[in-house]
């Protein structure tokens, strides 16, 4: 049967690998290519690489770097950051990226999702949605490149992006990001039951049982950054990934 996926998520800024907490204070972790090589050797299920400033400062994806990353990956690579046009997407697919993750581009207009899905197939289009609690504790859609809440109702937005042809949702619980204190399981459950397409969830993984819990509430895949890049209470940089035996145990626990 299809296995659930465990996916390292790497954040890029200025060509360097960084890690954030609650989507703020990016801390430099190292050279992305080293991390990518290690993850490839560990035979990770998939890899997500997100350039967190590309949309903010409206810059083009760094194709030369991304091509280098793709050449190190013998597993699927998903790239996100600054993708707004079909031509950019075409270029990314031609250099070895399997999937494209968009957020700002989609918030600017659902038609981008539709065009990408028609040209390249839904399976290559991942739409990312960040959810953050506002000061009243309400879960609101967050446009991270602009660092502000978006007015759309996230439940309606989910329906729209699925209708437009998105192949997967990448759901981030902003307040849990980098904290390694557990995922927002209620949010995950709410999102998963609203869509028929796979949902990759991120934000808060601090242990293997966090991953298992997310699978149990229906996540098709769990992405993690801090958990695979830091070790111990002092957050020493160490690239890790569960063994295949450990992942098998997590998946078996899900009784799929």
């Amino acid at each position: 049967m299809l296995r659930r996926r465990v996916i390292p998520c790497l954040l890029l800024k200025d060509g360097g690998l960084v890690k954030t907490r609650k989507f703020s204070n990016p801390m430099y972790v190292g050279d992305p290519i080293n991390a990518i090589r290690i993850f490839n050797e560990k035979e990770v299920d998939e890899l997500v690489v997100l350039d967190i400033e590309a949309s903010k400062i409206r810059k083009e994806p760094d194709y030369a770097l991304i091509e280098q990353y793709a050449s190190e990956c013998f597993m699927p690579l998903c790239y996100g950051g600054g993708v707004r046009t079909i031509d950019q997407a075409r270029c990314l697919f031609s250099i070895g990226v399997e999937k494209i993750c968009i957020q700002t581009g989609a918030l600017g207009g659902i038609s981008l999702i539709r065009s990408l899905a028609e040209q390249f197939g839904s399976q290559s289009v991942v739409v990312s949605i960040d959810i953050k609690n506002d000061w009243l504790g309400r879960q609101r859609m967050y446009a991270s490149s602009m660092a502000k809440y978006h007015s759309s109702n996230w439940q309606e937005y989910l329906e729209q992006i699925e209708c437009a042809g998105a192949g997967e949702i990448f759901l981030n619980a902003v307040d849990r990001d980098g904290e390694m204190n557990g995922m927002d399981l209620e949010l995950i459950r709410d999102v998963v039951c609203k869509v028929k397409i796979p949902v990759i969830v991120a934000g808060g993984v601090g242990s293997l049982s966090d991953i298992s819990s997310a699978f149990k509430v229906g996540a098709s895949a769990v992405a993690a950054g801090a958990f695979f890049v830091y070790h111990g209470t002092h957050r020493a940089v160490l690239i890790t990934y569960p063994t295949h035996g450990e992942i098998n145990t997590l998946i078996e626990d899900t009784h799929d």
Partner: protein
Amino acid sequence: MLSGSFSGNEQAQRVYGFWVDPKIVEERVITILDYGMGNLGSIRNMLNKIGADNEITADPLRLKQAKKIILPGVGAFDAGMRRLRESGLLPILNEQVLHKKIPVLGICLGMQLMTEGSEEGTLPGLGWVEAHTVRFNLPVDSKLKVPHMGWNSVKLCKTSPLFKDSEVERKFYFVHSYFVRCRNKDDVLLHTEYCYCFDAAFEVGNVMGVQFHPEKSHRYGMSLMKDFSEL
């Protein structure tokens, strides 16, 4: 690698310091067909990693002399067939595969194009295999999602030079919303299970097709590519 004779008018390629006749494709070279669809770079990467000589080409001259062919493909069925037709390579491809019996490996959409047609589109397929491409029709109450996306294990259905070690457990990366249904059970090489059991690969003489992406399946893909390169 020095060629025989070639006239000054023929275009020669400079390879490793030797001039070679572009019409001669070395025996060991795997030709990755570029018809505008598919992650050619990824396939080349894996072949390079395992030390299998390869080239990406859309050149009819090179295709005519190909000794082994990979037909990649990502995207929609009709778009794939249209591109193949527009490339002008179809007659040579058919000649190579159907008459010269050159080994050919179709990957993902490439495998589906080898069938007679697909529920995804209206154009006829290559018809190299007695099979049709159909959509996953999951029960309404199913918790499973389409596309079938992720790692899944496969079961070997017959002996094959592509899977020399029959005992090994294998898993590959799949991403597709349509799958192939072979009419002859004997053509099926691999089964996998997603809601129901379906054909993950076929092998009919020199024509092979895999639904998954070996170039994105780590050691399992490398093993398959290695066996293909040694055919």
